[in-house]
């Protein structure tokens, strides 16, 4: 199994840590992982993305242009990376803020209203965890427990009281993914 994912969005949306959680979780399950951030000036306020690869084999290139899964959390990211989904791949997008939905038909498209849901849960910061949940539902690359353990690694100690909330968010995401209308 090799899963090649890109996660893209605004700087504050937690795209980098989403990728990190995936990778930490992969490590828990003894998989090979690679996390490659876009770094540079765009990080200051602008957009950010990271490539996460989780695989049973040794990973060659950590830099890719085609992905099994693309997660787009804002419009510019969707516009930029829609074409990067491999045929038959998965595209998840944040449907409460993205107005122009994707148009490809050769892939699986999963709209998740994660922001709205996060607002309902009274913590906009957990939006990314909702999306993560949706991903894991659709592609159980790693187990939920591993994801929680991964989260523990990424979250600074002082935020560990928020882990239950995050877990809830992941579960909510899974729920949403189940209900969502997947176009393919």
């Amino acid at each position, binding site marked *: 199994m090799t899963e090649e994912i890109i996660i893209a969005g605004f700087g504050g949306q937690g795209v980098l840590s989403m990728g990190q959680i995936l*990778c930490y979780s992969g490590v828990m399950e003894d998989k090979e992982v690679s996390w*490659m951030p876009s*770094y540079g000036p765009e990080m200051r306020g602008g957009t950010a993305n990271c490539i996460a690869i989780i695989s049973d084999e040794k990973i060659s290139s950590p*830099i890719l242009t085609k992905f099994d899964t693309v997660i787009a959390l804002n419009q510019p990211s969707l516009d930029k990376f829609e074409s990067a989904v491999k045929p038959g791949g998965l595209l998840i997008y944040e449907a409460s803020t993205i107005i122009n939905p994707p148009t490809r038909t050769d892939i699986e498209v999963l709209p998740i209203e994660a922001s709205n849901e996060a607002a309902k849960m009274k913590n906009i910061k957990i939006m990314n965890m909702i999306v993560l949940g949706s991903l894991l539902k659709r592609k159980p690359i790693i187990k939920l427990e591993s994801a929680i353990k991964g989260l523990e690694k990424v979250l600074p100690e002082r935020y560990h009281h928020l882990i239950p909330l995050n877990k809830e968010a992941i579960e909510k995401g899974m729920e949403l993914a189940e209900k969502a209308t997947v176009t393919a």
Partner: protein
Amino acid sequence: MKKELKLMKGNEALAEAAILAGCDAYFGYPITPQSEVLEYLSNEATKRTGMVVLQAESEVASINMVYGAAGTGKRVMTSSSSPGMSLMQEGISYIACGEVPCLLVNVQRGGPGLGTIQPGQADYFQAVKGGGHGDYKVLTLAPSTVQEMVDFVGLGFDLAFKYRNPVMILTDGALGQMMEKVLLPEQKPRKTEYEPWGSTGKTPDRERNIIYTLSLQADVMEKWNQRLQAKYREIEANEVRSEMIDCEGADYVLVAYGLVARICQKAAHLAAEKGIKVGVFRPVTLYPFPYADLNKLADNVKGFMSVEMNAGQMVEDVRLGVNGKKPVEFHGRQGGIIPSPEEILAKLEEKLVGELV
């Protein structure tokens, strides 16, 4: 103590490896994309091993602090990125001439000038041909994984002391910023014994130790150079390291170092899917460069393409290795752009496969 498996950023892994290698001192100056090395060490090192960590006032100062500290025989290092490394060139020439072992790390970014902070490989010439003045060589290691960012710290110090020569880890911003699993080595103790040549205070039992680089007499300086050159021949005989991936039976070979070698591997997989047999040759030591291995390889393949994040630097060494036996092409990206596997394959098809059929 058992070895520990961690997920780490390249820069931080390298810094951690320095602590674990029993490094005695780090002197450096912030510059993106390698400031995490200094930052990580500022947080961790002194409290754990008593290692000295000092933010210098400039790269010029850093490298000269390294010269002083390493001249005592301690394990000393610095790190920087391209423009900062340029400022160190005089110091590196002194360090090489004075035969002061130390570890230098260049986390390359896109140049020239202030350039970009994205990854680059355009300091290859500077590192292996000698950006500083005079004939000297820096043993240069090019990691391609975060694990190697760790491993080459220990190896680097060992080689530095074995040859009393500076060793450079030549990496790039992407490797510095990316995260991978790493197996960390055990904590090595800090150095407690003095080196016989170190400038630490003249005791009655020995002549004074001087670290210096000057001779007023040209003939003395020539002998000095000959001694250095003899050492370099020895390094060239013993320390060449390279990796060949699927070169056996390959028609074409991609030559690349560092991260790009891994992208080339992916490109080779894509090629295989198309029925083109492509191998990857990765020089691990850039100096000494694996000329002989390439030359041998040239007997069995149709052509080479060197892939670099620059406008064509290592390709000259590839050509020197191949020495006219087979065509050597080049594909490069500059200014911080990382080539993609698809693009590499396309260029290979265009420049070699297309040409040679």
